């Protein structure tokens, strides 16, 4: 007889499903494991909810999620950021169904309870019927612990875990490098592509640290580039590397020359940016500014994968949201320069559209590949998913003695070891 899937597993069972070089297929398809992940991972760590520019001023908000729970990210009238559960404390109705905007109050549409942007319950219609013992202070919107680093806003259900900066650890350096795409201006979001695929969230998590697939899955994207740009996107052939950053985070450097966008400013401007450079010069930007902006517009050369739900991926934020064991939602958030030249931001959007989103030259093929993984995992209940590629460090690499080949599955192993730690804690 099969074990009922809703039977809680012992913690050591989860540990046995992740080995150093492989993970068990049930991680993609067992609904009971998915439910436990929502509890043990998404309610026990820092989860990315927004970029600071998405709540750009006083009394602004945007909707988001922490795991499966809908939240509202707000900036109150004192400019303090809050992450609030999107649930009226009376009878649970959502208090906000607008994606983002500006307001000073959330009014529940059902019975009219109203809340400030810091979550405080402001007023209750016909309150006297509750009697004298009713205290509004007892029923604010539930507020999660919220911290931010360099514009990245995270929330957690846990008051007793490490501060965000400790959680990010050595990933912070890479976040700082990533934000150089502002070219000296603050980074702001420029819109987002959203799509779903019928597959487990960890398939997408793996993909952000998978250079091995790039020349295969993205052949048609590569074929659409000019020779100079195609050479830049030869991701397996440029001496890149993958590095485990701890806490399940990892970085995959595909274009080492594009790690620090403030270096090599004297290098020739690539042909595809010649028109942009000309336009910027015409607008009166100095040669140094033009070079800095053009280099930033081209995007970064690495994917920083932050466990469990966000990546700083070359030139955009890649956010995943687990919907069910075999359904995942992805957002590709474009970024640009807040206050920078419009021509630069327009070019960034066109470059983003070229690869990303439901009809980009890259994302649909990724999504098809991920769906094929989920479909294939229906076969072979006892088989394992291999993540054993490139375990030995590269000898004598400039980035250090611990780094592995750019196509190594080091980032996946790092994420799965964190999964194992959290699922068996």
């Amino acid at each position, binding site marked *: 007889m099969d074990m009922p899937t809703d039977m809680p597993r012992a913690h050591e069972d989860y540990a046995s499903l992740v080995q150093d070089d492989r993970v068990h297929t049930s991680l993609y398809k067992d609904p009971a494991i998915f439910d436990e992940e929502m509890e043990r991972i998404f309610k026990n760590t820092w989860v990315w909810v927004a970029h600071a520019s998405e709540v750009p001023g006083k009394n602004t908000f945007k909707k988001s999620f922490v795991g499966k729970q809908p939240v509202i990210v707000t900036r109150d009238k004192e400019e303090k950021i809050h992450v609030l559960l999107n649930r009226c404390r009376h009878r649970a109705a959502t208090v906000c169904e607008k994606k983002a905007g500006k307001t000073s109050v959330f009014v529940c549409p059902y019975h009219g309870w109203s809340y400030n942007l810091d979550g405080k319950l402001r007023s209750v219609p016909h309150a006297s019927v509750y009697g004298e013992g009713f205290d509004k202070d007892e029923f604010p919107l539930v507020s999660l612990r919220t911290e931010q680093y360099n514009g990245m806003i995270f929330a957690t259900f846990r008051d007793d875990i490490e501060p965000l900066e400790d959680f990010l650890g050595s990933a912070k350096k890479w976040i700082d490098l990533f934000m150089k795409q502002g070219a000296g201006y603050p980074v702001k979001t420029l819109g987002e592509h959203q799509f779903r695929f019928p597959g487990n969230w960890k398939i997408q998590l793996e993909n952000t640290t998978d250079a091995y697939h790039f020349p295969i899955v993205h052949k*048609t994207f590569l074929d*659409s580039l000019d020779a100079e740009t195609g050479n830049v996107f030869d991701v397996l052939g440029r001496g890149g590397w993958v590095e485990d950053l701890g806490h399940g985070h990892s970085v995959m450097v595909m274009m080492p020359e594009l790690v620090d966008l403030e270096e090599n400013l004297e290098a020739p401007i690539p042909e595809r940016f010649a028109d942009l450079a000309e336009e910027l010069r015409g607008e009166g930007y100095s040669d140094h500014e033009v070079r800095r902006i053009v280099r930033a517009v081209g995007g970064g050369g690495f994917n920083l994968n932050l466990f469990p739900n966000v990546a700083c991926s070359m030139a955009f934020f890649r956010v995943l949201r687990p919907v069910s064991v075999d359904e995942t939602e992805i957002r590709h958030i474009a970024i640009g320069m807040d206050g920078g030249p419009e021509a630069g931001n327009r070019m960034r*959007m066109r470059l983003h559209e070229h690869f990303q989103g439901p009809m980009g030259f890259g994302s649909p093929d990724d999504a098809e590949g991920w769906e094929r993984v989920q479909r294939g995992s229906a076969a072979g209940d006892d088989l394992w998913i291999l993540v054993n590629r490139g375990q030995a460090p590269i000898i004598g690499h400039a980035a250090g003695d611990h780094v592995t080949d750019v196509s190594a599955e080091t980032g996946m192993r790092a994420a799965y070891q964190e999964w194992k730690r959290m699922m068996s804690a």
Partner: protein
Amino acid sequence: MSTTEMTRSDLAAITLEEASAFIWHEAELLDRQDYKAWLPLFTPDGLYVIPIEREAEDRAGELNIAYDDAEMRAMRVKRLKSGFSISSAPSARTVRTTSRFVLEEAPDGGVLVRCAQMLVEYKFERTRVIGADVTYHLVRTGEGLRMARKEILLLNSDDPLWGIGYLF
């Protein structure tokens, strides 16, 4: 055809009958995925736009699902027909109908046609329906009607879609 006649025919108003015949022909080409025949239906500076934002302000200044000039369209068609894109080899099958035509004169010549499109796609034993408001800017040329712009506002443009390996 003389130059004088050309000019006269350029200026003749585009009728509903002509516009709907053009749009149905285009729809049939797209369902058959005869993209090579579809490309010349645009003017050389024509735009193919699939927006995200519901309210049109400045599509060029916004992120879109697609914002294609002639070069991008040609590259897109090459990609979809190459056989190397797993999402389009094969793509979902599609059947679309277009109706509810409303014509008005375009300020800079030709006509704007606003219409409704219902598209059904099928792949992996899964059927999906997508509605869209489509706006054509049609102009008359020596070769017949051409699209100066086609903008497809999907009903769910600002919510999650999925990998799409065909053209709207």
